[in-house]
């Protein structure tokens, strides 16, 4: 028995026949069957996925120590590698721990991909090839060929909206697992991958039957759910304060420019009374200085109130 036959026997045939039987019992709807099979496969691989997520989390926890080691042995790469391995060993974390489950899951994804493409059988060659994978169950034979229509989709052709969904969900999932790196070069590479993979998959989605894209979107959504339950939103929400900091930095810069030219421009330096007038607190009440704000010279400066909600001066 060749490797191809073994692959067909243990992966392709069960997957294809499951898809067909599920289609029959899910209102003869192949789209629903794809979603359900993707969820079942994800559920079956949940222990592996969780192992991967936990290993990633453990690695994340080691980041400060690793950064210290990097600083300490910056000039001795060999020693650095030795110390890193030693630390992994001591803390019981394996760098391969977060990659091995991914590698194990790959064949399952490929089998699912192949099965969907076979079962769709949009051209005679595919339908002819499908016959050798079928079990001799009457339900399987009487269900074929499957209906390709699902919602607005023709599962046999590419779809623009689904391509955007594939790219979007993949970006979200990747962003959630992204770890902040100290090395700007590494960070740059990671950022590139964050965009490259979703864009590539979105492009591939356009070239393939949308039945496959439906599998990708479902898979991404399930993984986002698993990731969220294990580690929360991760870098997806952590990036927000960072943006705030940058905005503040620009704000400070503009203010310092304005300070050089005190009159004119769209920023004004109100007097204490004016500031009280803009405040939402009761007039005369003392505000506690919590510290950590802008420098004293800047603290008295506020943006000129803009029109719109939340910026309207309080009526007296």
């Amino acid at each position, binding site marked *: 028995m060749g490797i191809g036959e073994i692959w067909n026997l243990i992966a392709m045939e069960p997957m294809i026949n499951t898809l067909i039987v599920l289609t029959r019992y899910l209102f003869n709807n192949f789209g629903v069957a794809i979603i359900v099979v993707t969820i079942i496969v994800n559920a079956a691989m949940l222990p592996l996925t969780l192992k991967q997520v936990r290993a990633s989390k453990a690695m994340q926890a080691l980041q400060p120590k690793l950064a210290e080691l990097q600083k300490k042995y910056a000039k001795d790469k060999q020693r650095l590698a030795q110390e890193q391995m030693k630390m992994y060993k001591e803390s019981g974390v394996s760098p391969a721990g977060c990659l091995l489950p991914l590698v194990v899951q790959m064949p399952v994804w490929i089998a699912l991909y192949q099965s969907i493409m076979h079962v769709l059988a949009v051209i*005679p060659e595919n339908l002819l090839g499908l*016959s*050798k994978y079928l079990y001799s169950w009457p339900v399987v*034979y009487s269900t074929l060929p499957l209906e390709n229509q699902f919602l607005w989709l023709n599962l046999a*052709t590419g779809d623009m909206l689904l391509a955007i969904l594939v790219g979007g969900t993949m970006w979200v999932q990747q962003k959630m697992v992204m770890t902040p790196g100290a090395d700007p070069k590494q960070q740059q590479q990671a950022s590139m991958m964050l965009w490259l993979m979703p864009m590539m998959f979105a492009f591939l989605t356009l070239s393939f*039957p949308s039945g496959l894209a439906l599998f990708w979107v479902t898979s991404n959504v399930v993984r986002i759910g698993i990731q969220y339950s294990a580690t929360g939103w991760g870098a997806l929400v952590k990036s927000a304060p960072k943006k705030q900091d940058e905005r503040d930095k620009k704000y400070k810069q503009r203010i310092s420019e304005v300070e050089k030219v005190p009159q004119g421009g769209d920023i004004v330096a109100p007097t204490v009374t004016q500031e009280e007038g803009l405040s939402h607190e009761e007039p005369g009440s003392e505000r506690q200085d919590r510290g950590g704000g802008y420098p004293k010279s800047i603290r008295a400066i506020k943006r000129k109130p803009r029109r719109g909600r939340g910026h309207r001066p309080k009526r007296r």
Partner: protein
Amino acid sequence: MEIRSNIALKVCLAVVLLLVGLTSFGCIGIRTSPQGGSGGIVADNTLFLCPALKQASGGFGCAAPQTEGKLVAVSTSDGNRLWEVSLEASRATSGGYGCAPSVAPVAIYGSPAVAGDLVYVAGYNGRIYAISASTRLSQDRYVNETNPQPIIGGLVVVGDRLYLGSADGRVYALNGTSLEKEWEFKTGGKVWSTPAIEGNTLYIGSFDKKLYALDTGDGAEKWAFETEGAIISTPLVYDDTVCFGSFDRHLYCLDTGDGSLKWKFMADSWFWAKPVIYDDTVYAPCLDGKVYILSAETGSEVVGAIDLGSPISSSPVLVGSEIVVASEEGKVFAIDTSSNQLRLLTEVGEVINAPLCASDETIYVYTGSQNLYALNVESGAQLWSLAIK
């Protein structure tokens, strides 16, 4: 951290490249673009055939598959290519995003039909082509102008009319000269089957699991018979019986008068190819690799099935008193109808899916490797071969 980041990045890149590679180079073994490749038809010592389209290979990601089909005329005496006419893809029917071709390819699955000087061909792009064998001038037309859908089955010409089924779920009768629609009949599913006509009745199967008997004059339904599976095989009509295979793995034989069931026979897989009848015996090739030899009267097995060892998707032909049949793996056999003994004619070693074509004592085999072979049925000797790409 550096090590970890590097590993993660490399794995991500490897996953992307693996997926792109597997899908782009077809390593996963699934084709999404139609290839076609019809059987041949012989008229006036000329064999007409539509070769399979070249598939994109080796081009990373967006290597576009060939979309332009062709009709080739070959001399049956020496295998010389007489002429060929390009069948151009004219407009987008669906998709066109990403790497998908923007026009539906003119892949031809059904064998051409000949009537006088005209050769008719039906394309996957939903278009019918009529080509003059003498002038090579052609005219073409969408069968369904508003919603062009693939035509997989072949055409049948009777008198000045063309009959065909389309994946838009309709059966059409067209005028043979103008190609204009004369009538249409809507079924409940796609139609991939080639019609069979006897007298003034047309028989055709549909994905809606029904075999329809229609009046050739106006397309009115005479009767319909429902099976448990889709029907894509071409029906065989003899005496007052119509015989066809269904995806429920049964071969059905019905009374042509009222569509009542005479008998049915179950195999281990689909009856994809059209059966052949000789001397009250039906020879039914099946995708389970066997040729079932059944009584035309009762449907019982006359002798045990003959196992060819590989699926049979190519329709067999009757030459003299022998049934010539080809297995998918490239072996061509002759079954002697008097003794039901199998004889290996030749082994071309290439995939055979297209229907066989016969003329006198010669059979023509078009393979998946895009080679056309002419074989003598008596001796099995190869008379000539021609690469048609």
